[in-house]
Each structure stands twice: as C-alpha cells, then as structure tokens.
C-alpha cells in the first residue's frame, strides 16, 4: 500500500510538473553562500550545538556541519540557520 502511494506521488510529480518538495515531503533548502541556510519541511530538532545541527525529516535526517551555528528563527516546519556552514549531509532510513 505504501509502495503504491509513493509510486503515485512520483508519477504526479513527473506528469503534473509539481514541485517535488510539495509532493514528496522532502525538505526544501535555500542557502545564501555559506552564511545562511533556510530549511523548510523539517520534523523537529534532534541535536543542536554550535558545530552541528541535526534535523529530523519525514524519512531520514539532515546533518549540517559548520561553526558558530545559531538558529535565528524556528517554526514548526521551518528553520533559519546562520553561521559558517561547512557541509550538508542526508541520512536516509
């Protein structure tokens, strides 16, 4: 059943030309250089320090590495992160 649902979503994204983040429940990330990062569609903060931010996604995790990280603003589905961002990594489950 779940596999059917996922296939249908992929199909919709391809055929109807919808933005993938809307259909597939994946995060949409906007970065301004290495200074600022805007993440939509997250599911909560797992870990936060000034070197690492670990966010929960619908299926998996997002790990942001950097230095002097500060969460400038946070809403239930959005995060605005500032600092010197060194790397972004996805872990899929």
């Amino acid at each position, binding site marked *: 059943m779940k596999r059917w649902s996922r296939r249908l979503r992929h199909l919709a994204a391809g055929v109807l030309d919808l933005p993938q983040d809307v259909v597939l429940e994946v995060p949409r990330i906007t970065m301004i250089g290495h200074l600022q990062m805007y993440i939509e569609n997250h599911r909560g*903060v797992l*870990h*936060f*320090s000034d070197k690492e931010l670990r966010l929960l996604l619908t299926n998996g995790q997002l790990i942001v590495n950097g230095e002097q990280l*500060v*969460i400038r*603003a*946070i809403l239930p589905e959005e995060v605005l992160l500032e600092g010197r961002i060194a790397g972004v990594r996805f872990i899929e489950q």
Partner: protein
Amino acid sequence: MRNVLKEWTEGHVTIAVRGKRFERLINMAVREGFYIWNIRRRSPEEGECDILVRDYFRLRPLLRETGCRCRVVRREGMPFWLIRMRLRPGFTIGIFLFFLGLYMLSSLIWSVEIVGARNIPAEELQQAASKIGIKPWAWKVKLKEPQYLQQQLLAMVPDASWIGVELKGTKAIIQVVEKEQPEPPKMYSPRHLIAKKKAVIHRIQAEAGKTVVKVNQFVDKGQVLISGVIGSGGRQALVAARGRVEGEVWYVVNVSVPLTQTRYSYTGEQQSRYSLLAGEYAIRLWPLRPEPFERFKHSEERAYLGYGDFRLPLGWKKETLYAVEEQKQKRSREEAIALAKRIAQHDVLKKAGEDARIKDEKVLHTKEEDGKVYLSVHYAVIEDITEEQPIVTLPPAPQPGADTSDQ
C-alpha cells in the same frame, strides 16, 4: 519570519537553559506555537535562546517535563523600559520636561526679519508689527491668521503698497513692497551758463534764461552764454539758466608713431614654481634648480591656511612664468600716418568730452626722423561748451562778453 517591532513592544527575555534535553524543549515549545529565536549553544549542557515574555510564563510545564532549568540573562523591550522609568521618576520627568521645553520654545517667535524695506525705516515696521503681536518671545499660537495680520500692518504703514507676513519656524518674515514715490524734482539755484573754452558758437538751444550770444560769434573762456538774469530795468528776476550751447573749438595735436614696432608674444612655454610661505619667508619647493626664461611674464597665486577671517601665516605660493619672445614689425609711412591720425582723433575726443564730433581735420605738418613719424594735426570739434556759474551777488558782475552782446 521575525517581527522586530512585535518583539520590542511585547518585551522579550534571553534565557539560559541548563539541561540535557534542550532540543526536546525547543521542539515542544515550537509545536506549542511559542515565538523563539536566536538559539545558541553556550556549552554542551547549556543553551540560550530569546523568547517573548508572554511565552516565557507558559514555558514552566515544558521545563518540568524535560527536566531543564532556566534563568533569565537579559530583559529587553518596552515593558521593561516602563518598569525602569517607574523606578526613576526624576529621569522620566526630565525627559518629559525636555520635550515639553523643546515644543514650547519652538512655538515662540524668536526673531522678526524685515525684507524689502528701503525707504521705510525698519524701526517703524518693527513697532507696527509689535503692536499687533509680532515680536520676539511672542507665542505663535496667539497670533491671528497671517492674511489678517497683513491687512492690519498695511493699514498701519501707509507707505507700503503690500506687506506679506510669513511664519517660518521660529522666525517671522515681514516682506514689504514700497510704494513707488516719484523723485522730487531737482532744485537749481540761480545761475549763468558760461563758456568753458575759447570757441565759435555753432548752435544755441536755451531752455531757461536769456541768451546773450549769437551764432558764429567768438566767445572767450568764462564769457556768459545764457544769463540767469531775466527781465530788464526794475523788473528783474533770477532763474537757473538751462540749455545747451555748442561751439566750434580748435585743437592742435602732436603725435609721434615709431616705424618699427616691437611686440611680445607668448611662445607657449611655461614653468610653474611652488613655494612654501611661512610668515614673510618663502621657501622654494619645486623646481629645485629653476632655469628662468630670457623674457617672461609672471603670475602668482597665494593661498593661506585658515578658516573664515582667521588666517595662519602659513601657506603656499604658485608662480607661473610664461615665456615671451620679441617680434619686430616694420610699418610703412602711410600706415604710420593713418595710425597717428587715429591716435590723434581719439586724443581730441577725450579732451572734448563725450558728445563731441569732429567737424574738420587738417594735417599741418609731417616729419620723419629717427625712425619715427611726427604728425601735427589741426581739429575743429563741435562740442558742448557750457559751464555753470552760480549767481552770488545781485546784480551779477558785468562781464566783457555779455556787454558786447547786449549792444
């Protein structure tokens, strides 16, 4: 995402949260709809974040659930300001009084400026203005409409044809347009018109007085032309003689013109020299070893340090030397004579006055000597020869010319 104005008006606090489950606290707070920003890590065990005062009071159950402890680090925003103001009433009153004073002082008239009054004395206008309330230290609020003030002022100052009143900040500007007064006619005292040069009368145009000479008559210097005494016998009166008498005056002018002319013209070469001025001394800065031109013209610019009228005895000087070269030009005899005549004419007209005209020109004598042309020219010039002579005694002293013309 953030609303700084809201943060400030509602007040916000920076809290330091100590506990292992800091992330969980934030997740729960965000899910509850709290307004949280600027989340930082201070140490692995302690985090810091900003939160609205309103949400701070709702944070307690979440803290208990996650086992965190929090303390307030900094308070900011309007509510805290108000508290601080209540704690320091003197300070608050001072601020309030400051703004009140500023407002009061700006609603006073500080100065009255009068523009456009040339013949009407400024004191008169100031007095009139202060009677209807326009004076320094008067309240602007108490004044009536400027248009009404204008009318009142105009009624008080009859010499003005229009008066405008304008309040510009703390300055009242009274603009005056004066009535155009006709100029009073010039008064002349009784006088004669006499000849200022030896001449032959060419034309007489008398406006007032008695003409005592005739056309083509020879007059001497000082001779009366138009007499200020009119009437005869017992019925005599004195007037200011007016009129114009043109006479033919003879001049002989001697001019010499060299046959070779030396002219200096710029070669285009120039040299700038810069010096530092200290008091009366000038210290040459550039060039170190000047090489002057053989012939040059020279201009100088001085600039001193200082501000306004104050001037330091320190400055710098820029001299510019423009190289010139000599050019010799030869003139023919005809050219030289023509030039001499031009010079002579110019000379004569300068002597004869503005409205003179040359009637006749005659070259008396031409001589060439030592590379120069000497010319002697005779001119007959028609010019105004009148001069005023006030009548002091009555009857005027009889003059030789006047006697002859009466006969």
